[in-house]
């Protein structure tokens, strides 16, 4: 019987932790942000999302966003995130691929 002892190639990771935001009790009076990263099809998905949310929550209001930097994908900067957080109560986004 032979035994081969080897060293693990896998690195430890730097763990990060973010507390999730409190969820909303009701979307009926919420302002909801719809964030499109500009990947194809995401705009159509958010169009339908807005339509369905309007039907179920007639009092909801909507704001559209995309990131201010990027190329195939447009990303949120810290300033974008601050602005969105100040303007809406919740956000629906798309990733696509």
């Amino acid at each position: 019987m032979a035994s081969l002892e080897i060293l693990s190639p896998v690195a430890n990771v730097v763990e990060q932790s973010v507390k999730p935001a409190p969820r909303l009790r009701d979307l009926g009076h919420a302002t909801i942000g719809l964030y499109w990263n500009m990947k194809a099809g995401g705009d159509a998905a958010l169009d339908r999302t807005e339509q369905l949310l309007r039907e179920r929550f007639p009092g909801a209001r909507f704001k559209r966003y995309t990131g201010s930097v990027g190329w195939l994908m447009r990303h949120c900067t810290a300033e974008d995130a601050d602005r969105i957080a100040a303007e809406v109560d919740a956000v629906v986004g798309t990733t696509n691929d």
Partner: protein
Amino acid sequence: MVELERRGVPTVIITAEAFVQDARRSAQSFGLAGLPLAVVPTPLTNRRPEDIHRMVTEAFDQVVAGLTRPVEACADVGRPAVEERLTYDGPDLLDAWSRMNRDFLARGWSDGFPLVAPTGRAVEAMLRGSARDPGEVIATLEPGFGVATVEKLAINAVMAGGGPEHLPLLVAAVRCLAEPKMYLRNKAMSTGPHAPLVLVNGPKGRAANLNAGMCALGPGAPSASNTVLGRAVRLTMMNVGHTYVGVSDMDTIGSPLKYSLACAENEAQSPWEPYHVARGYAREASTVTVHFVYGICELHDFRSTRPEDLIQVFATAATNVAQVGTALWLIGRRADPRYKTEEREHNTLFVCPEHAQIFAGEGWDRARIQQALYKTARLPFRTLMLNKEPKALQAAHPELGWLADHPDLPLPVVETPDCFEIAVVGGAAGRGAYFYGAGEPVTMPVED
């Protein structure tokens, strides 16, 4: 979305079934594994609006739940457990080694080829290639925020089949990968086939017996050192950066270039200053440059004897709209808002020595080749926009709205002439290589 959650805004992401694990791993890396998802059966790309509407309708309850129900803690999404030592038993050592390879494959730690066993003795020998402390942290590698100690790099270099001479080169390559401007997270996780092209300049490359000549990127004994170095970079991306296929590397097709893609510049047969000197390093310095590339196109021309004619041929490789980076400048720049970095899309040309001599013989330097390619490699606006989102053009360049009225206007395929990187590589005969790049290359010095 995690940044919005951090700011107290509840979010939900609409994503495809195929990308759920990727989304969860990504959210976990940023500290919120339970980030709510609304899952649709297929990606939204290449779908008719009515099909997208139907999928969203079916996922709508998940959207509402994601914004209103408490976020559940999500189990660990496959982040590999870290055991510092592992033991494999068998009737003999060869059998034990086979078991190690099977286990590494099952854990996702292998590139698919047999690995050299990273025994304590082998790793100790590898570490002699560097004056650094084994515990020194070279970088934290994305997408998994893995801690790249010298020892972990040495272990992966052993697995790749490397020797001590490769360790300083790997350390420099990892420093390139970790540079914020590299935006490794994007290139490692993308659905595109991003492969790290590693180009070595200077005496350390020659000492490591890297091939710069015939079949420098090919298989066989002349390029064995190249193969090992490129493989070590890939294994490091996997096991240190935690770039694992199907979990945090969502490449649609993949590419053989991702196994290993490394060589040295053929400085001895170059009529120009070495590539690293053009990038600001001293001639006697050794450097490693990493440029992520999507694919490769041959630059074949046995007939031309004038630079202008070679440029015409080279430009046909550059004008390939099916390649994502072609004229990507029209819809913005690759950007990582965390570090406020932006990259232009560069492409790397490996000019073979014979073609290089034709250019140099007529007094052409790199800058003149770049200018000539910039002027020649153009396509009509309408052709360049065939696979690009018009609204992205509007967002990136509102000042270019007038182009819609000039669809046949020829436009350059890159943002500026210096987006063509030029190095001399290869053996005899007029065949070079054009690499379709992803973002910009990064160069780091090789230090012991």
